[in-house]
């Protein structure tokens, strides 16, 4: 035997450990490409085809934009949200279910590194999903990005928000059924009424409060503004609300990790 004890990387940030969390999760995703990538691309293709190509030409332009251009940011945002949430819940829950979460718990990794690694894998999956959808939309001639920094801001921040929510659900769930609760009763309904297919002005006046009180409206509106410049709410308001949500969720998840909720016995 050689010398006893490897030197671990610097105790400030375990970069190798952090990178390992990411590459391990990417490797897991590449084992299930149909579920992770192909499914959302096919779903987006159907939406783009029906709403952009079949229904779209029969709808007058919205704010001077073709219906496909208007609807694409909403479709993209729905898929980013789903990819982020599913990635985080499956990452956390499956590790708990198979108990290989213990490999991470016994290692010299901080809670921040564990969370950052999980979120980096979330961003990888949402980025791959988004790039695929943009490529599909490009075939139908519906892709515009007027502000790339703003576009990246919305994709990354929303990925972070739903990645963190996914971690919470992944820690809380006691069975596979519970993993889907938030998606079925919160994410899907709110994203559909958050302005994916219509403007707030199209809603009956008594229903508009639903849009203003719906966080998905700000996410979709922000992404739409970054892509086609169409805006129904003050841009800084959406950004501040999203960043606030991101910070609150980050602190919550860090707290859950530090007390070992759902992780440690």
């Amino acid at each position: 035997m050689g010398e006893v004890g490897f030197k671990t990387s610097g105790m400030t940030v375990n970069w190798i450990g952090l990178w390992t969390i990411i590459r391990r999760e990417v490797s897991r995703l590449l084992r299930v490409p149909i579920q992770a990538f192909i499914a959302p691309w096919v779903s987006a293709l159907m939406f783009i085809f029906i709403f952009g190509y079949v229904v779209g030409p029969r709808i007058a332009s919205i704010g001077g934009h073709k219906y496909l251009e208007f609807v694409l940011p909403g479709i993209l945002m729905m898929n980013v949200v789903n990819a982020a949430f599913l990635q985080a819940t499956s990452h956390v829950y499956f590790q708990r279910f198979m108990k290989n979460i213990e490999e991470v718990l016994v290692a010299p990794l901080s809670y921040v590194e564990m969370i950052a690694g999980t979120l980096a894998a979330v961003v990888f999956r949402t980025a791959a999903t988004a790039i695929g959808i943009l490529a599909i939309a490009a075939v139908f001639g519906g892709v515009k990005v007027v502000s790339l920094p703003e576009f990246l801001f919305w994709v990354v921040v929303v990925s972070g928000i739903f990645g963190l929510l996914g971690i919470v659900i992944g820690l809380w769930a006691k069975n596979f059924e519970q993993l889907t609760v938030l998606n079925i009763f919160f994410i899907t309904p709110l994203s559909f009424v958050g302005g994916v297919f219509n403007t707030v002005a199209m809603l009956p006046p008594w229903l508009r409060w639903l849009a203003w009180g719906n966080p998905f409206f700000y996410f979709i509106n922000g992404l739409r503004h970054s892509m086609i410049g169409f805006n129904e709410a003050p841009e800084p308001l959406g950004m501040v609300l999203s960043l606030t949500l991101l910070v609150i969720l980050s602190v919550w998840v860090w707290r859950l990790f530090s007390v070992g909720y759902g992780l440690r016995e």
Partner: protein
Amino acid sequence: MTPALRVTDLRKVYRSGTLAVDGLSMTVEEGDFFGFLGPNGAGKSTTIHCITGIATVTSGTIEVFGVDAVKDYRKARALVGLSPQEFNVDVFATPVQIVDWVGGYFGIPAAERKKRIDELMQRFDLTAHLKKPFRALSGGLKRRVILARALIHKPRLLILDEPTAGVDVELRLDLWRYLGEMNRDGTTILLTTHYLEEVERLCRNVAIVAKGKIVRQGPTEEFLEGDGLEAAYLGATGAIPDHIAAGAA
């Protein structure tokens, strides 16, 4: 000299209210080969989980080479290797992936990791099974992967929770030899097992735990005096069957 492991008044109450460890204290000196014995449900695995961070500590302190395993947990964990009782791995991953990922978590650079993995795969005769998913391996091979994973970062304190359960005689003998070599080279080993022969052969000191407390502790020779380790174990745990007790009387 700073002990490799010092556990003081450890108490662990699960969220369900179950008291698993009740004021357990023990010290394992550096370089020791330490047997940690007790019946199922006595609190051995829970104690190990508290030491390694799998379980939270309700109260008490744990020091690994003088490092507080709760307050300074990252530094403490870098010093410990764990081979758990259960196969807690991604069953779809290959042996190389499993060991490589854990090496990464411990911050070992890629080149060094690769060299160490090659060494461990050869040491545990896993080279013919490198591309098979874990779930396709036999029980003995799975145990070897778990051991290789525990050793990837050359821990100073190696904790083995029933490492030879379900393992064939050849691997058991090979493993005993390897653990003996590691211990002679300076690795402190904490071993839990139900095979008392294993303890007699390998361990220099023994602690017996029952109902979450240490009920007897001392050098292995002390346990071997009189009726031997088995009788000492049964006596300490209060589990002497009537017919044995009657025979002894």
